């Protein structure tokens, strides 16, 4: 069987979603870990060092390209699958099955993903684009290195209430997206042992709640002035 046949089959397309999804899930752990440095309560010293490491290390910059490719494939494949699947039922039902058979968030991965895509664009505009292109004010770290003061950028960004609200709503969407996506990815890859599936389901819920809560607390604690 040709590779093109495999990846054009319904199972192959889902495999692409599962693999890129799990890749992005692993990225979120790194992202949350680096960002958690804002809570070191040292005026952003540790966080700026971590951000400098992420921005100035050539290996990580190369990995960043991989991350972009992962995002792009997940987004385009996800949207195209959503449209293809929707087109499989031209005449709909007068009375829908609704929540009688499945969870609303399992049926709304396309919608949740689209909300996350819109958030991602806002998020890039807030942090990634200033850091890479339009410039961020500089700060000198204790080791004498001058770098972008990303901590100050976070503080000024999260001083506006609407930004905090948008970020928290995005984290809520992320949580539901991950709760379905985590276990679904393993099912798509072929894990069919019921013991593992129930374990993965629990791990997935734990991961989704913890990661989303950690991200949501970043703008909230900054807005409330708990981070110095």
């Amino acid at each position: 069987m040709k590779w093109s046949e495999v990846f054009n089959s319904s199972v192959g397309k889902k495999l692409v979603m599962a693999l890129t999804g799990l890749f992005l899930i692993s990225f979120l752990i790194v992202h949350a870990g680096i960002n958690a440095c804002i809570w070191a309560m040292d005026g952003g010293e540790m966080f700026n060092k971590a951000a400098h490491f992420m921005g100035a290390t050539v290996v990580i910059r190369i990995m960043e390209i991989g991350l972009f490719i992962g995002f792009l494939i997940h987004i385009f494949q996800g949207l195209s699958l959503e449209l293809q699947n929707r087109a499989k039922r031209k005449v709909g039902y007068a009375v829908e099955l609704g929540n009688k058979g499945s969870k609303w968030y399992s049926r709304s991965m396309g919608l949740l993903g689209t909300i996350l895509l819109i958030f991602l664009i806002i998020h890039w505009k807030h942090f990634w684009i200033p850091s890479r292109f339009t410039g961020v004010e500089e700060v000198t770290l204790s080791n004498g290195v001058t770098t972008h003061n990303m901590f100050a950028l976070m503080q000024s960004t999260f001083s506006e209430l609407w930004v905090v609200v948008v970020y928290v709503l995005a984290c809520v969407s992320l949580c539901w997206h991950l709760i379905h996506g985590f276990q679904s990815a393993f099912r798509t890859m072929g894990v069919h042992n019921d013991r593992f599936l129930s374990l993965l389901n629990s791990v997935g819920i734990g991961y989704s709640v913890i990661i989303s809560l950690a991200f949501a607390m970043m703008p909230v604690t900054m807005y409330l002035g708990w981070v110095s």
Partner: protein
Amino acid sequence: MEQTINVTLRVWRQKNANTDGKFESYPVSNVSTEMSFLEMIDVLNEQLIKEGKDPIAFDHDCREGICGMCSMYINGRPHGPWHANTTCQLHMRAYKDGDTITVEPWRANSFPVIKDLVVDRSAFDRIIQAGGYISVNTGNAVDANAVPVEKQKADSAFAAAACIGCGACVAACKNSSAMLFVSAKVSHLSLLPQGAPERKTRVMNMIAQMDKEGFGACTNTGACEAVCPKEISISNIARLNQEYLSSSFTTAE
């Protein structure tokens, strides 16, 4: 205890595949609660025939829940409100006096409406023809116990073999995916030693045919499992994924 109730049926009427359909309402009076849903429609149809109207066309055969022919989408759920049940085994005691019951055909592009509540499910036949079988040499029948089968695998295969191919999974799935059906058939055969020689080609050909028939992809929502009259587990879909990926990645060409 037997009671009689009056219900209103809101039924999808469609002359043939090329015309548009619409809902029509029919009052059905003095319905025994001990009647099956299909018997209630029989009564209504006799009434319609007497009135000189076209009776409601619907699929049915064994009327004992094992053939998979009945296919009504009743009040937003395939085979009606009862768990692990076919339409023919649904009884009117599920309803109260004065209820309005909406009955629709299975909805999926791959299941085109033939007439009223009858849909064309031959796409399932073509999927089976693509690989849902085992090849057996002619000659003397092999002794039934000659081939040892692991107990757990025999149980899983048997549970998957319970699929009657009614298509409720497709009807319930938001993607009109046939994965639960295909996974039941693949699991049933591939778990057993008799299915081993064609294991790889079976799953690849059946998935290829499933995609060709225009069914959607699985997004693991679980709606299929919830409505399946034979309680086919969604874990079969994960097994199908594994069978497909390991087969398609390991073929030489």
